[in-house]
């Protein structure tokens, strides 16, 4: 199973506990985790279902640069963390 955690900056808008979902592509993993809180999806994804410009996704310790395809394959035991990127204003 893959562990998916959404940072507190997201959970303050829509609560979502850490999810354990089946291994697969990063997109499949994120979509599966977001079924627990469908209202959170629009915070993570833009209208085209790409990861928002100011949201960052980490797989284990590595930030994912691809925001569109999300076809990186994840294995059981991987950990995904979704955070807000550091932007000002």
């Amino acid at each position, binding site marked *: 199973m893959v562990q998916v955690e959404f940072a507190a*900056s997201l959970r303050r808008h829509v609560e979502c506990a850490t999810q354990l979902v089946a291994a697969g592509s990063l997109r499949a993993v994120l979509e599966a985790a977001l079924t627990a809180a469908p209202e959170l999806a629009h915070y993570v994804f833009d209208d*085209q279902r790409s990861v928002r410009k*100011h*949201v960052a996704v980490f797989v284990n310790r590595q930030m994912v640069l691809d925001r569109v395809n999300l076809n990186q394959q994840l294995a059981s035991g991987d950990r995904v963390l979704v955070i*807000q*990127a550091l932007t000002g*204003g």
Partner: protein
Amino acid sequence: METLLVASRKGLFVVRGSGAQWAVESHHFAGEPVTQALADPRDGAWYAALRMGHFGVKLRKSLDQGVTWKEVGAPAFPLKPEQGFWADDPTPWNVDMVWALTPGGADEPGTLWAGCMPAGLFKSQDGGQTWALNRPLWEEPRRKGWFGGGNDYPGMHSVLVDPRDARHLTVAVSCGGVWQTHDGGESWSLTARGMTADYLPAEAADDENTQDPHRLVSCGAQPDALWVQHHCGIYRSRDGGAQWQAVKAPAPSGFGFAVACDPRNPNRAWFVPAVADACRIPVDGRMLVTRTDDGGKTFTAFGDGLPQSHAYHLVYRHSLEVAGDGQTLAMSSTTGGLWMSANAGEQWHCVSRDLPPVAAIRFA
């Protein structure tokens, strides 16, 4: 007692008062950019459009005048086609900002229209729970000729619903002219004849499709009376936009963003002058409001109560509003000023000079 919703870079403020006595009563969504607000006159619901820096556009609704808010749906574009006419559309199919929120007709409870950046028009028929893109306008081939004015992409800032016929909408796009539908959005026509854009090559200056109306308003009592503060000056129409007439630039300037029209008198309108497009500050550092009472033939400038020395306030297109009485006005600025007038703009009272940059104000 009037209520004013103030949408700012750092949250929504509720301001209440009358005459010269106004005060900020409450602050909502502290720290979040709010780009538009609406108090629906049909059911009293309040809406606030947020533009979260990280998480995109969100719409919040209150049924108890701001005591509690809940998230409702937000306008969102469908998936961009990978083939066909729109595959190479340079405009992102992502809503970046809700720029206009307009209730549908009195006979259409729950219907709302949202004009967005990029310039999509969205309709909700369930009080904001769900939204649908108006495809006929978005897929109008001439949209490819639109471009951004002060923004990276074209945006729709003005959406008027005809009080006589809610299937008649008039919308304005920077830079994409003025468009109208008479069948609820199934078909659209371009209605910017008479406008001139001096930023275009001379031979294209009267191209209706690339005009830059900064703001479009109508007279409530006579909806065919329209006013536009255009990038290149002031325009009015007496025939619902079939033909536009340029108004001679008033002193000290015909450049600006905002316009408000007396809801009872189509010949009275207010503007807030700035120097020019390349210098968006008050002329000589003096903040003024200009008013015409004769349909644009003459103007009077009023500065009583407004900062008159080294004032650099800019009033955006949604930051000059007139209440239903035609006498009470509100004005706000990008540098956090908020002023009220109880006598049709002749004198002003400062509510605050310390608010965040204000994007929009709406009387509730």
